């Protein structure tokens, strides 16, 4: 036994990204039905797997870039890239969600790093990736910073979230930094 193991930070498990399939609905519920995860999302937690299945079918499967964050091929979260509308195809925003039991292990940061690489390699003309995090969500802000995003400013009263107007922190990652 290695005595040093007690003093080392737990290593981030190996994670992979892949497309979703309909059979991932139970895994999907492990984060999408959890109010701790949906706290900073616009949606309320899912209670009915049928609703989750409908969301996977109508939103995730046809999405231009939506991936399951997997450990041993089992989804523990998701990450997606949304290109900006209209003329600004050089710009895209990233969103991610992770099952609560997998927080604090560096998984989201690792998924973000893989996604940044995929985004700049796969999306033509992409120059800017951006993400916003609630001012009261320091965990997500840390994920973005650790993945190399730069904070650009605080956007006051930026978005309505569950009946409240929230201040958000804007982050970006440029192709020149890749």
């Amino acid at each position, binding site marked *: 036994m290695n005595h040093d193991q007690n003093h080392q930070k737990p290593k981030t498990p190996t994670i992979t990204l892949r497309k979703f399939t309909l059979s991932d609905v139970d895994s999907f519920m492990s984060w999408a039905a959890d109010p701790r995860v949906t706290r900073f999302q*616009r949606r309320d937690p899912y209670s009915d797997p049928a609703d989750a299945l409908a969301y996977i079918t109508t939103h995730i499967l046809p999405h231009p870039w939506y991936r399951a964050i997997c450990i041993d091929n089992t989804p523990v979260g998701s990450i997606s890239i949304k290109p900006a509308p209209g*003329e*600004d195809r*050089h*710009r895209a925003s990233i969103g991610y969600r992770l099952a609560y039991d997998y927080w604090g292990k560096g998984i989201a940061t690792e998924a973000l790093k893989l996604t940044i690489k995929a985004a700049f390699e796969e999306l033509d003309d992409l*120059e*800017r990736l*951006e993400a916003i995090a609630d001012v009261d969500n320091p965990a997500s802000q840390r994920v973005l910073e650790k993945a190399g995003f*730069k904070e*650009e*400013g*605080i*956007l*006051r*009263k*930026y*978005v*309505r*979230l569950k009946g409240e*107007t929230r201040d958000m922190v*804007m982050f*970006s990652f*440029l*192709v020149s930094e890749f």
Partner: protein
Amino acid sequence: MDEEVTLRPCNLADVDDLYEYASDDKVSAWCRWDTYTNKEDLLNYMKTCMIPHPWMRVICYRGRPVGSISVTPYTGADRCRAELGYVLASQYWGKGIATKAVKLTMETVFKDLKDLERVEALVDVENFGSQKVLEKSGFTKDGVLRRFWINKGTVRDMILYSFISTDPLV
């Protein structure tokens, strides 16, 4: 000078006056639209966009239209915010007219647009004239959004300014 700047809704009879700046390269340089080359195109834009717009005003100087100003809300969860845009004939730049128009707008827009809590404006990092207009009107600089916006084929850094409903009018 203050009393000489007024805002009013647009009507189609304004086309001749608006065409004066819409056909000016100096004015369109910072905007996404290309300089207008005929009044029919401008009339079409006025009919389809300016007149039905949720918040659009013509800026008048001594009663004559010399520009326009608009506040365009987002939808859904983003309906608490809206984007400010304004344009002014170049011969009227540097007189404080745009600043007065923005101040007049901020006095009423939060009452006019339901759910609105944040007005934001994006300004090119090199558009110093427009930056001054917003700073003098009480807007706060939120930050620089790098490589944010494509204008006429070039990717630009933009400064994001905001004015929220609880900010003081200046």
